[in-house]
């Protein structure tokens, strides 16, 4: 499984830095200030929770870090690259290699089997077929889903689908995992399992994790740092002592 390890954590290295970052959407005659001047720094290997009520701008912030969206002004530098200055093609490369994403609604492609979903990013990365199959199997083993690799997403439970989505997010060995309400559609038991996996990626693979959630309890239990947003502005940024890793191990199925 050593092949899935990202660059080792170095607390001094900055993974994500935003400066006076803004994302405004026009809507009718008004302007929605989804992200309104946020400056922050996330070090490599950190597990950060972005907290806030709905409409606070946390998902928009995540999309900017992911390179799915472009800032209206300001800068967002991920792994020393200013995303605002990248071309559409380079942003696609950023999403492919630098970040991995999981979503509340899993976002697996319904017409593909789990294995095909997981290896899809490898197709975009133009990796040869034989290697793709091995890598997809390894990633599915890591999330404990190798038995169901030939099923379609609709045949799987929510927890299983989110595991598949995690395997897909890992497959190109990104340094950063971006999770948007990863447990939002899951019951608490399954949610705990998924969070355990995310914590494992953070601790054992050294991935930087940015998780958007509105559940403060979840953030307190897993994150090392909690950033609170409201109306597109950063309102609080505090370190957190997560529950011990032992708990994470305990809940791993």
């Amino acid at each position: 499984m050593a092949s899935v390890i990202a660059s080792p954590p170095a607390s001094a290295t900055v993974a994500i830095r935003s400066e006076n970052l803004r994302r405004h959407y026009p809507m009718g005659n008004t302007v929605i200030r989804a992200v309104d001047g946020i400056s922050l720094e996330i070090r490599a290997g950190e597990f950060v929770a972005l907290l806030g009520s709905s409409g606070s701008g946390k998902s928009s912030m995540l999309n900017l870090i992911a390179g799915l969206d472009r800032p209206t002004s300001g800068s967002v530098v991920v792994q020393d690259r200013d995303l605002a200055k990248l071309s559409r093609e380079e942003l696609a490369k950023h999403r492919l290699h630098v970040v991995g994403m999981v979503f509340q609604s899993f976002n697996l492609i319904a017409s593909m089997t789990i294995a095909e979903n997981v290896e899809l990013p490898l197709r975009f990365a133009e990796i040869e077929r034989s290697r793709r199959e091995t890598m997809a199997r390894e990633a599915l083993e890591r999330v404990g889903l190798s038995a169901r690799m030939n099923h379609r997403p609709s045949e799987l439970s929510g927890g299983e689908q989110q595991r598949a989505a995690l395997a897909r997010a890992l497959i190109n060995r990104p340094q950063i995992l971006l999770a948007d309400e990863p447990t939002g559609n899951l019951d608490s038991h399954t949610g705990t399992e998924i969070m355990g996996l995310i914590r494992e990626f953070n601790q054992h693979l050294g991935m930087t994790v940015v998780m958007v959630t509105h559940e403060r309890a979840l953030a307190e239990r897993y994150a090392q740092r909690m950033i609170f947003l409201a109306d597109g502005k950063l309102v609080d940024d505090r370190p957190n002592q997560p529950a011990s890793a032992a708990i994470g191990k305990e809940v791993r199925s």
Partner: protein
Amino acid sequence: MKLPDLTELALRNLRESILRNSLTTIGISVGVASLVAMLSLGIGLQQLASRRLEKSGLFDTVVVTSRREMRGMGREEERNGPNPGESRILDEPVRKEIEQLPNVLEAYPDIRFATELRFEDKPHLTMISALPESAKSNDAFDGMQGAFFSSATAPEAILQKSFAEELLGKIPPLGAPEPNVADLAKPLLGKELVMRYAQRESAPAPPLRPADGNDVAGASYSVVSREQKLTIVGVSDLDPESMRGPMRAKVFLPLKLAESLHVMQPTDLREISSAASNQPVYSSISVRVKNPGQVQKVEDAIKKMGFTTFSILDATRSVRQFFAVLDLFLGIFGSLALAVASIGIVNTLVMAILERRREIGIMKAIGASDGDVKKLFFTEAGAMGVLGGIVGVLLGWAIGQVINFGTNIYLRRQSLPAEHFWSVPWWLVGSAILFAFLVSLVSGLYPAGRAARLDPVQALRYE
């Protein structure tokens, strides 16, 4: 994304909404089928026409007539070249001169005359023509019963099938099947024909006293009625002179024999001074050229000598032009259906974008570039084009076969020979599929571009 991956994903996506994509593909197939059917009809008819022309054996032949003949001249020919009255007579020295021209295989006089033949004491009036030795290789004698002339001077004759029917009194009524040439030849081969003809003989000036204002201008000749016995050596199935229309002969003699007979020719009346001297004057000379490519050059050279020429190539030039226009029109009609089908592709793919909006968003979120998305939609369009093209070619070929079959039943009922007038050459198969592919790609341009530009954040929000 690499091509094998693109193709795999595209085919998978096409399978996902199998009904809609099948219908679109069928639309392309129908378009390609109509294109293939139309063009193969045009090509088939053209091949049929050229086959007919080639079988005539006159493809490499130039027919030379004197301008004194004063017929068969177009307006342009009338204006250019010498005045007919002052132009040269087509005689033996001219024949030899033409034979010396580059690329000319041979030049032989056309001796043809209508006369009476007696067979078993019954008279038959027909057109007779002389054939050179080289005519032996003419395709028209492929299915001949019996043999070609034993020598260029042998008193022998080859009959055309229809004349054999006439001799035997076996002319089939209209609509009845044609009798077999072998059955016709059996009772005729080796039998004797008696040919009556008018021979031209030079004669001393008649001892007539000139009447008032009517002087004897020169030499004179006499016309003597003669008979020549001929042995039937062959009966030909095809008509070696099908291109000559009403002038075509039904009985053929060896050339040297015909020359030695000094048969009275229509030109003899006009060229009276030469005729009287027993020096042959020809109404026309056939010139065989090494290959059809040089026909034009030889024609030009002969025209420069001051004669009128005609070749099948002149006729086929307008035939080819006609078929080029016909093919163009058939092609345009055929393409109309394909144009309609291409709108179907645009529609299907635009629908697919709406339906797969979220999927496109997901692919972009996990690293697909605009190019990947564009290529995927392009490949889907292209795959529909190739599939539709293949099915369409098969369909078009099948339509052609059915129509060919049906028409041949009709032709047989009219007791006409069956013809293969439907042709699907390989280049048409290849280019029809390629054309369908290209049309699909063009149709895919807009949808693919639209899919590629989709904003992933918006697309992911879409449920």
